């Protein structure tokens, strides 16, 4: 029942907002915030009361003759993603409180619709339901990005849409193939059936799934839609894309690709890992060159996703556990960083590192929040990025020491571009653009404070999260290495 409520609440909120069209603008903000807060409380309840022994499931017949069910369930991996979604969406809504977007009701309605679809993706136990929600999450974000974005948004977001749809269609073929072979759509039953699929088919399945998820994350060479989309979209849409939608790709790798194509993983996984690590280095190097902060964070996201993909594809406990932890950490950090960029842009009207600088003197609070989140992103010990990145690198290293060594460069490169960004934007002499920069207050603090707090808490107590996912990851690993 809990699983169903988690989907229904944002869905009802979204429909309510949609029916509010044309009413007082302030109302829709509050309705959206209230809905997402209720959702957060329920997600928190699910998180606290979680027990890996009890099975939380709902199952309704969806297409009887095809044995396709509306089947939701929560295990440790799902729970982590639910918690992340529940935590981030209220913050994303709150981050928009200072601005008024046109057609607010539709704007917030689409955000909540995305949340409902995301919750569905992370809980789906039926492979068609998974696909259904996976696609459904994209449509509202596409409209958010295209309709409220910058001048070039229609063209750029269209590219994103066609790109990701193209990838998903490969996944659809793979799903249909598996479904016909195993004549079941239940993911758990498909795991058992996957063993009997020939190695040649498994390799094709591996690539079909990998392309779909790699485009979503994105992983080299499927990333070309990402920097433009992230920088042209309105900030809430960018937050959704980088904080949550990209995680659907990693989640898909863990939940769908690894257990359904284990032979494909051992045959082709290494090539995919090389792609991911290349993307990681490539993204980091480009991020060092960037002067537009939003693009810089976009490339840093791309680099982080590459490491997560490599960790998952290593097929080791530490790699997958690290990826799960890093998904949460990166989601939170990305939302925080994009929000800070938004704050800077609203006050100075520029995202250019050359025109910024000298902000720290006037903004002690913003500087501290920025510093904490930035250090989380650099993966300093005692911040949330550290444990995840460490485990990821260990996973890659266990698989192949050379690749692990190359991936380890990310620690240095990450520090270079992040510290460069911090130093060029915040420190130094203030100029006429930044002279009247005001410190954060009100709702801005309400967004940044929880994020900064979680960055530290997760860094100090990573075990809370690792413990939750460990049983689920172990049972997955038994399927991969029987």
């Amino acid at each position, binding site marked *: 029942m809990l699983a169903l409520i988690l989907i229904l609440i944002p869905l009802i909120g979204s429909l309510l907002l949609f029916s509010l069209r044309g009413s007082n603008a302030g109302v829709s903000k509050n309705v959206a915030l209230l809905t997402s807060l209720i959702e957060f409380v329920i997600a928190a309840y699910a998180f606290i009361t979680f027990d890996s022994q009890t099975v939380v499931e709902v199952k309704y017949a969806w297409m009887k*003759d095809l044995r396709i069910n509306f089947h939701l369930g929560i295990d440790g991996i799902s729970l982590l993603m639910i918690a992340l979604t529940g935590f981030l969406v209220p913050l994303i809504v709150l981050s928009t409180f200072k601005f008024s977007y046109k057609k607010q009701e539709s704007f917030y309605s689409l955000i909540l619709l995305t949340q409902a679809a995301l919750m569905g993706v992370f809980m789906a136990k039926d492979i068609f339901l998974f696909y259904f929600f996976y696609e459904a999450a994209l449509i509202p974000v596409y409209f958010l990005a295209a309709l409220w974005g910058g001048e070039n948004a229609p063209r750029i977001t269209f590219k994103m849409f066609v790109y990701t*749809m193209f990838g998903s269609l490969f996944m659809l073929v793979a799903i*249909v193939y598996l479904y016909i072979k195993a004549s079941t759509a239940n993911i758990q039953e498909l795991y058992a059936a996957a063993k009997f699929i020939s190695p040649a088919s498994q390799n094709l399945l591996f690539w079909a799934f990998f392309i779909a998820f790699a485009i979503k994350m994105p992983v080299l060479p499927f990333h070309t839609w990402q920097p433009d989309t992230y920088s042209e979209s309105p900030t809430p849409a960018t937050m959704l894309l980088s904080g949550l939608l990209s995680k659907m790709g990693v989640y898909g790798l863990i939940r769908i690709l690894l257990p359904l194509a284990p032979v494909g993983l051992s045959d082709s996984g290494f090539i995919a890992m090389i792609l991911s690590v290349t993307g990681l280095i490539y993204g980091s190097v480009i991020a060092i060159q960037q002067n537009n902060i939003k693009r810089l964070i976009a490339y840093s996201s791309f680099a982080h996703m590459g490491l997560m993909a490599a960790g998952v594809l290593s097929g080791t406990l530490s790699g997958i556990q690290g990826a799960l932890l890093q998904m949460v950490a990166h989601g939170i950090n990305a939302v925080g960083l994009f929000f800070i960029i938004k704050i800077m842009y609203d006050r100075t009207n520029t995202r250019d590192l050359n025109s910024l600088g000298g902000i720290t003197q006037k903004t002690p609070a913003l500087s501290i929040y920025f510093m904490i989140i930035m250090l989380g992103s650099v993966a300093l010990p005692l911040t949330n990025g550290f444990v995840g990145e460490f485990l990821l690198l260990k996973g890659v290293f266990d698989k192949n020491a050379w690749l692990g060594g190359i991936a380890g460069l990310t620690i240095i490169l990450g520090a270079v571009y992040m510290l460069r960004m911090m130093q060029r934007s915040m420190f130094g002499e203030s100029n006429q653009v930044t002279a009247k920069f005001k410190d954060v207050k009100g709702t801005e603090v309400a967004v940044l404070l929880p994020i900064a707090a979680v960055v530290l808490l997760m860094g100090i107590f990573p075990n809370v999260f690792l413990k939750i996912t460990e049983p689920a990851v172990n049972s997955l690993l038994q399927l991969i290495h029987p």
Partner: protein
Amino acid sequence: MYPILVLSITGIITLFLGFLKSKKVLLPATLFFVTLAFLANLYDWNKPGLYFNNMLQVNNFTILLSAIILLSAFLIIGLSKGFIDDDHAQPAEYFAILQFSLVGAIMMTGYQNLIMLFIGVEILSVSMYVLTGSDKRNLRGNEAALKYFLMGSFATGIMLFGIAMLYGANYSFNIETARAVILQTQLAGRPVYLFVGVTFLLIGLLFKVSAAPFHFWTPDVYEGAPTIFTTFMSTIVKTAGFAAIYRILEVSFSSIYSFWWVMVVIMTVLSLIISNVTAVSQGSFKRMLAFSSISHAGYMLMAVIGLSNKSDDSIVFYSLAYSLATISAFGVLMAVSKEKLVDGRPDESITVLNGLSKRNPFLAFILAISMLSLAGIPLTAGFWGKFYVFSDAAFRGHIWLLVVAILMSAVGIYYYFKPIIAAYMRESEGEIISIKPFYKIILGITTFGSILLGLFPDLLRSLM
């Protein structure tokens, strides 16, 4: 069987209603007649049987297909309000011909005898030739009608030739007898003209559903015909045509699958590639929809190739999903293009949709859902339609066909989004568009249907 009787009688009544001074009664009367036929159609539910000296079969599958045809007809006729306001129009004749054409379409869903198939195809086609040219002052309409007539009668001739050969091979026009005869004879004992007959019959029918390489008439005819009849052609003719193709292949020729599947696969691949690639560069919305209809013929052929025990469900579902979305799209086009004339003709390019979200948010929403459904995006009926036909093709192991279809679906997403982008992201040029409440209701039904079937596809499939 009953809808055939009902529509034959009401068609004649409609002709006489044309003598009345007031033309206002015609539209409600026709809608009433179609509803009557729809109800008569449902009367036979769960009462399968053979009628007219074993010429026509009625079972739940044919009833569902007829129901889709009649429902589409009801919705399309409901949208034709603006058409009769024209002084030169002869609404009584058009409505009568429409009803007669439905008789042909329904015959094609349940024929048990090849003669019945031929009569059905001819009734439907001849009606369509007339309706295509119904806008007498429009030169392109006349050209389209002539083109359609010449090529259509040629295709009918080939089909008749095929039927004659099949008669020679099987000594009967009855499709069940044909099945039995084919099963009894050994491979070597089968006459060559059996295979020639199958090929010719297929060519004739594939022409009617505008599958490549027999699609050349489609864009010109679709563009030239009045939009209301284009809608009719692209939904009802297609549903009836696929019902006929599936029926003959499933009943008579399933035992010689190895003979015809290669041919059908080639036609499917051609349909998918030619239509989708050409549609990308179309500036006219109506031409784009014409190519889209060719591509959907390709997708539906995938269900035919699958010929699994689920193929009939797939064809029913796909027909309905496709018809609903197409009626919405053409409905929006009709409402929008009326406002702006270029060279005395309604402007039917994609740019006419610019800024539709500001000029009429309702129409923009209808357009968006219909394009999403045609593109096969989840949450809409089109997605499940695609999923079912893909599953059918996968059932026979045609993985490469699936890959082609997937690639072409991706291309499809590209051009189906052009109207959405025009409607939501381009600046508006025209005035605010107002539409009549009845028009709104019809478009509301089609869109609601697309979403409902997208969320609960079992609603339709549980009927089977």
